[in-house]
């Protein structure tokens, strides 16, 4: 399409301005993460946009190395929360993907579970806050509070709608000729699913799993309610990086924020082709 030069200039100006605005908060945090204590503790006029003396002190500090400039030592280091986040987000993804993929296949090929699409959309619709009282009671009854399995299980349920809908659209798109051919050869339907369909769907499974993982990794509210100490995830732990003596440990929080923010950004960009599909429950496949 023919466009005038002035339009091109306008387009770049607007886009670059918005790109700048959308990057500034993230860049500010990254900059904070590499500032030595003297540069972030004085939360006053002399905050600079770039660290004058870049350092890894903040990262060392959250992993337990005490610092000479900062009198406080951490009661708990960031290692455990990072592990808790990784483990529960991964297991939650496994639960959601297992139940979601098999249910999506059951519906897409055999028409079973016709209530699931709407039930799962509704599950997605409700604020987690609105079912948390019974969940907290059930979880404490089952001994699942502040427990890796308890958190993984609720993550698996909460992200099940996304796993199901994503895989359903992928199965709906997949041509059935190959499966039919294998059936004619005498394979059982189960063998067709496990030996032919699933291996063919490997890229789709990987994208869906990454998508679900990002969602689990991003949770804050559920972990806030269901963990107290041992299995506190990164965002819950982050709040403990401030004390009455030192106030907000800006640099330490920024360092942990960088660690928390990087994996989903990389994964998200890796699967951007499927983001629309995942976010709109397959209503639009880019």
């Amino acid at each position, binding site marked *: 399409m023919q466009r005038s030069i002035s339009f091109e200039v306008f*387009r770049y100006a607007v*886009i*670059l301005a*918005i*790109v700048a*605005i*959308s*990057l500034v*908060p993230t860049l500010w*945090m990254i900059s904070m993460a590499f500032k030595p204590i003297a540069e972030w503790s004085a*939360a006053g006029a002399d905050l600079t*946009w770039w660290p004058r003396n870049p350092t890894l002190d903040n990262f060392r500090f959250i992993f337990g190395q005490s610092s000479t400039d900062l009198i406080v030592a951490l009661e708990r280091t960031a290692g455990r929360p990072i592990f808790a986040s990784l483990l529960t987000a991964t297991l939650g993804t496994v639960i959601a993907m297992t*139940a979601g993929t*098999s249910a999506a296949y*059951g*519906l897409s090929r*055999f*028409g*079973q*579970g*016709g*209530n*699931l*699409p*709407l039930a799962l959309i*509704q*599950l997605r*619709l*409700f*604020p987690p*806050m*609105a*079912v948390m*009282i*019974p*969940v907290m*009671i*059930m979880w404490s009854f089952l001994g699942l509070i502040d427990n890796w399995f308890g958190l993984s299980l609720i993550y698996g349920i909460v992200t*099940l709608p996304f796993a199901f809908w994503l895989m*359903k659209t992928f199965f709906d798109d997949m041509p059935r000729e190959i499966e039919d051919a294998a059936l004619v050869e005498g394979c059982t*339907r189960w063998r067709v*699913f496990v030996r032919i369909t699933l291996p063919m769907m490997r890229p789709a499974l990987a994208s869906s799993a990454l998508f679900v993982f*990002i969602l689990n*990794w*991003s949770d*804050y*509210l559920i972990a806030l*309610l269901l963990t107290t100490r041992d299995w506190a995830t990164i*965002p819950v732990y982050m*709040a403990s990086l401030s004390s009455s003596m030192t106030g907000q440990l800006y640099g330490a929080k*920024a360092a942990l*924020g960088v660690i928390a*923010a990087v994996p*989903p950004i990389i994964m*998200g960009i890796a699967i*951007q082709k499927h983001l629309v599909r995942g976010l*709109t429950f397959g*209503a*639009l496949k*880019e």
Partner: protein
Amino acid sequence: MTNVSTMTPVADQPEAPAKSGARLGLWLTLPAQLLVLFIALFPILMQVYISLTDWSPLDGIPWWRAHELWIGLLNYSDLIADSRFWGAMWRTLFVMAVCVPVQFLLGLGLAVLFVDDFRGKRVLYSTLLVPMMVVPAVAGYMFFMLFQSGGPVNDLLSIFTSDPVRIAWLSDPDLALIAVMVADIWQWTPLMFLILLAGMISVPQDQQMAAILLGASWWRRFFTIVLPRMKSIIIIALAIRVIEIFKIFDTLFIMTGGGPGVATETISVYIYKVTQQELIWSYVAAIALAILIVLSVVSVFAIKRMQRGQET
């Protein structure tokens, strides 16, 4: 969740499945069905029961004996008179009424700029998506830093004024709500952009070409061809944001904790506070149930309407 079994399938029914397939299908859907049942049926029954009592975890009796504290519908009548609840409700709706249109218009504008090819499109597109992939709690922490009185937002504003600006954004009741909305707009405009752009690209080109040949202006083509064709995707994009803002918690809670006072207290923050700080769980159950019922009715109605809209 409340009327799961009466739902009709949205999917196209595949051709009549063989019997063995039907049985395998049942087995395959079983885990998901159980998980949905586990999170829907039992909790909701429990919620109904507890909401009719005055039970709290501090009472020292297990929840199944809550009937000893039976108060009937008192929690619900309290709810109707609870000005803090309604304040939180209106605040949530206000945030929605501001953020959703702003995100929509920004996203639509960006989508228009991105719809045809130009140099650097792919990189700029990926960069624009970064905010929505930042963990919301971390985004909350970023904006907490940015809006400090000695922080960069004030630094930027100082460029335009003679005196350095030292606004305490997060401790001013009016400004705190603005700061929270800025954070939401920053994080979720990319989502609108992503969905609207995908919708815009999927609008077929032939009609537009015909319109160009007939000399229709860009604005005319946009409003008479492109936008009407995007109707359903626009509704989906708006619905996603409306739903998510109704639940808004993470970013906001980390930035302000609902404060100062109750100035940024939304529905989720209010429920959280009653749950964790005041520990009146029976009352929370009543609030949650009321919200679930309203949302169920609204969502069933909306989904039915959309399905009817798709068929015609």
